[in-house]
């Protein structure tokens, strides 16, 4: 949509990330790099044998890599380019396990969706909000796909936003 706030709006939000936005964007950046690394672990561990499912996992690597890069572009020199170690540590065993991978991936995608949605409630700059919104939309699609890979068939399971496993 090419809609913009009215020019006479008295409280037009800033476009570029503000100083207050930076810690939030840095945390999201590192979370995305953690997701990228976790899916790499899944690829390296051959957790899925089906060629088409493997292509999905590799696509997840690329998507999360793209999110990390886009967020780094927004935060500039503050980008650590390091994955959030806590997220990696919490999930890496499951991402290396054929039986646990899809469930862990689903929990991770829902966790990221929740984090990013929360971030949109605090980001002051519109460029950051726009980028994070575009990530949320696709990560929520990821959540449905990983639920399906985990064997979900019911609507409740496919639409579940559960994060804790």
């Amino acid at each position, binding site marked *: 949509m090419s809609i913009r706030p*009215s020019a006479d709006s008295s409280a037009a939000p800033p476009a570029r990330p503000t100083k207050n936005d930076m810690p939030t964007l840095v945390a999201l950046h590192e979370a995305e790099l953690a997701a990228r690394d976790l899916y790499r672990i899944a690829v390296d561990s051959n957790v899925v044998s089906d060629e088409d499912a493997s292509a999905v996992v590799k696509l997840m690597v690329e998507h999360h890599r793209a999110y990390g890069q886009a967020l780094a572009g927004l935060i500039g020199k503050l980008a650590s380019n390091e994955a959030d170690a806590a997220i990696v540590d919490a999930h890496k065993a499951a991402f290396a396990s054929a039986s646990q991978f899809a469930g862990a991936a689903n929990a991770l995608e829902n966790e990221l969706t929740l984090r990013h949605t929360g971030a949109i409630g605090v980001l002051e700059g519109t460029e950051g909000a726009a980028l994070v919104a*575009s990530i949320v939309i696709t990560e929520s699609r990821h959540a449905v796909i990983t639920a399906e890979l985990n064997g979900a068939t019911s609507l409740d399971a496919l639409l579940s936003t559960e994060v804790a496993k």
Partner: protein
Amino acid sequence: MNDNNQTKLEFAGALNRRQLLGLGGSSLLGAALLAACSHDTPPATRVGDAGTTTTIAEPEVNDVVLLRTAASLEYTVIEAYAQLAPFLTGDFASAKDAVDRFVADHEAHANAINELVVSIGGTAYTKSNDRINRLYIQPAVEIITGSDTIEPSPTPAEDALAVAIALENLAAATYQSVTSVLENLDVRKAAISIGQTEARHATILTRTLAPELAAIVPSKDPTTGADNLSALPSAFGSLSSISLTIGAPNESGTKTSLSVDTPSLNSLITE
């Protein structure tokens, strides 16, 4: 404006529309060139009297307007599902369960959005969006059902699902697009919370229509080069036009394509 220019404009204004058309393009061009070459007057840039123009006041696009528009879209999708559900038969009969669930979700979304509208001082909007109905929904339904000039679709269930997918993607894209425009941060968060649910709806419907694992990742039709239906079509949520291809194929095997866009200024629901 000097007297010479005033005279030229009065002369041009004295010609009616038919006379002006009868002069032909070369006459108009010649008049413009002659006027431009004149030494005693500034170059004329036109020979017709454009008259006065009335500028349409630009509507104020604020959080209330954006949310009311989102509410209208929710009602549009609810009404569209009522028209599409009867087509879901045969192999796609089970999709009616998803439709029932999604309609309930959209009703909840509409209520939540309208509560937000009221909370920030606006008036709730509880009707569908006329312009989106007219531009997208009604043409799509007519392409499926057929008319005096349109052959009915031989695959109405698949086409109904395709329309539903397009509408859910439209809803997701609309919330994504307004998220960065809304001024109230709490409202932004609420909007994207709803938008991500619409994206989940779209993904489930896409998997219903294209259930093969290979259909999750993006791919292209080797014959036409067109994008195949994909559950994960792009890394980032897209705000581009949504292509919808449905209906009976023509003699060359091509179906009708509709381009569906998120609400523009003409679709906004102002107060």
